[in-house]
């Protein structure tokens, strides 16, 4: 745990939830939890467990039943809410980030303009700053929403599933950006996300909402090794400790694979995906070699050796030998 001076946000006995009809629905046990300055925290948990409501409560836009939130710094939030005003440009949207500091006539100072430009540069949207929102892709819109939050110049950023519905490239880009902001700009960032793999590789700390309405916090690696993740997600067929999908060697054929580098790794992946077991003591030998950028695969049995030029050919040859 860290010294008190480093804490950006802290809750004590916070009771979060909402009222439906006459009933108060409590989402979590009373929470006493903290965010440390400059840390990127991923907040994980199954759908509907209350991640969004907790984020909104921490941002002060949802009122808790009881308890306290101590935060010395301003908070900017990025939600999944749909926004209207599709005729506004990316720059107009980022300008919203300055609203807390503007008068009723929305007069922008030189510094406001600079902060807006800076936010747009950080998310690499300079080339489409003049585009209207309805012309953007989902990923670009998400980046623009993040730029808006950055223009708010808040020290704490709360993001609700910023990578949902995006392709791998955009997801990695957003997580890398958040990483950079935490490390270089000293922002405190809390991201609610379902992206287990990305969270494990980027987060400084994980908040994990458990089914018994608690939030377990810790370093990602610790939570993997002590089995907390398995408890929460009840992972089916995904081996968290190796970070791979589990394959069953259904062909009952073992292959002795040798080689190096990415060629070796991807050949191994292909073999396992196709139901071969990769073992050192197998009689069937496959070796991968790369020479001057040319990759060759050799399939060796007691009787013969075949040279093949792609993994696809290798798999066909293997199937011909063993079936």
């Amino acid at each position, binding site marked *: 745990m860290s010294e008190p001076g480093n804490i950006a946000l802290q809750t004590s006995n916070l009771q979060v939830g909402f009222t439906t009809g006459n009933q108060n629905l409590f989402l979590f046990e009373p929470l006493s939890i903290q965010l440390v300055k400059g840390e990127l925290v991923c907040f994980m948990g199954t759908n509907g467990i209350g991640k969004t409501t907790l984020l*909104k409560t921490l*941002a*002060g*836009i949802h009122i808790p039943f009881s308890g306290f939130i101590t935060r010395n710094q301003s*908070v*900017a*939030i990025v*939600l999944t*809410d*749909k*926004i*209207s*005003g*599709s*005729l*506004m440009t990316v720059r*107009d949207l980022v300008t*919203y*980030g300055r*609203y*807390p500091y*503007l*008068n*009723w*006539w*929305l007069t922008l100072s030189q510094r406001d303009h600079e902060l807006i430009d800076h936010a747009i540069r950080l998310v690499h949207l300079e080339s489409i700053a003049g585009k*209207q929102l*309805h012309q953007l892709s989902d990923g670009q819109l998400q980046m623009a929403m993040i730029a808006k939050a950055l223009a*708010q110049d808040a020290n704490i950023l709360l993001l609700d599933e910023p990578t949902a519905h995006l392709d791998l490239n955009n997801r990695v880009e957003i997580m890398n950006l958040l990483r950079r902001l935490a490390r270089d700009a000293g922002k405190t960032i809390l991201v609610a996300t379902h992206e287990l793999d990305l969270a494990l590789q980027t987060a400084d700390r994980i908040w994990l909402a458990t089914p018994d309405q608690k939030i377990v916090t810790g370093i990602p690696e610790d939570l993997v090794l002590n089995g907390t993740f398995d408890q929460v997600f009840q992972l089916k067929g995904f081996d968290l400790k190796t970070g791979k999908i589990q394959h069953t060697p259904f062909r009952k054929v073992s292959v002795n694979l040798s080689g190096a580098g990415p060629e070796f790794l991807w050949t191994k992946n292909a073999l396992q995906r196709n139901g071969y077991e990769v073992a050192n003591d197998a009689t069937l030998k496959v070796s991968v070699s790369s020479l001057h950028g040319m990759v060759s695969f050799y399939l060796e049995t007691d009787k013969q050796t075949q040279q093949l030029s792609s993994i696809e050919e290798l798999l066909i040859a293997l199937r011909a030998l063993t079936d």
Partner: protein
Amino acid sequence: MNKTSSGLVLLIFAFGLGALFLINISLGSVSLSLPEILNGLFSKTGMASEILWQFRLPKALTCILAGSALATGGLLMQTLFRNPMAGPDVLGLTSGASLFVAVLLMASHYSGLLLIQSSWSVAIAAGMGGALVFLLIINIARYVRDNTALLIVGLMISAATSSIVSVLQFTSQADDLQTFMIWMLGSVGSTNWSELLVLAIMVGVGLAISIALIKDLNGLLLGEAYALNLGINTKRARVIIVITTGMMVGAITAFCGPIAFVGLAVPHLVRLFMPTSDHKILLPAVMLGGAVLLLCCDILAQLPGSTQVLPLNAITSLIGAPVVIWMVIKTKRISV
């Protein structure tokens, strides 16, 4: 949309408004030329002066006030409810007003009370009806949390009041029914200077408040959660927007009857001319645009060269609807 080009469009709108104002007061059963108009405006004697000061000027000014107020009300409602289908009458104000006017014109016969059916009594009835529905809506707005729920409540109130009005129409006498139907068709030609003064004050205050709300209105486009995060007091903004719209629309409905279409269509037409979501540009454009559209419709309603005057509501929708359809087809999209 950059600042200079939007400024240019605003300037064109303003010039258009001036030109249409002159055309509007020159046309009628007696056509007046520009020198006659100038002479009539300043001399205060003679026939031209009589026509201008008694009929044409109040009517043209009412057009401008009603057009601005209804169009602004429409924009405020579309932004508040983040719904392109919203218009100034979604709060049920117009229905409340028509209910009370219907009671005044058609049921006074049964009650045995001899109500005086002057233009003021109709205005007061309409104002009371609008205000009552409005108080109801305001109170409901304090309890329901989201804006869509408020929209549904407004529509339900409209449905309920229209059914009472239908019953009244069904049981009323032919003469009363016709008086009511004529009121329902909307008119800008029956306001005198004292009524115009009341109208001008209420609309003027409403428009001024709308301008003061620019930041809140822009913020509401992002939805309540984002607006709150940007430091906008959404609860207060919502109440002020509802009160402002209610006041402007109530005043117009009281004196001119329920004028259809302008409030719904003008914000869309304006956005098609100047594609922006910024209320700093939209609000003045919508105010000018509403006035321009209603002046146009009134010119057409007078059937140039004839003494016949067509009902205003028939013209606003007949001319406006195809224009909006055409522009929507042309740009293929509509937005808030």
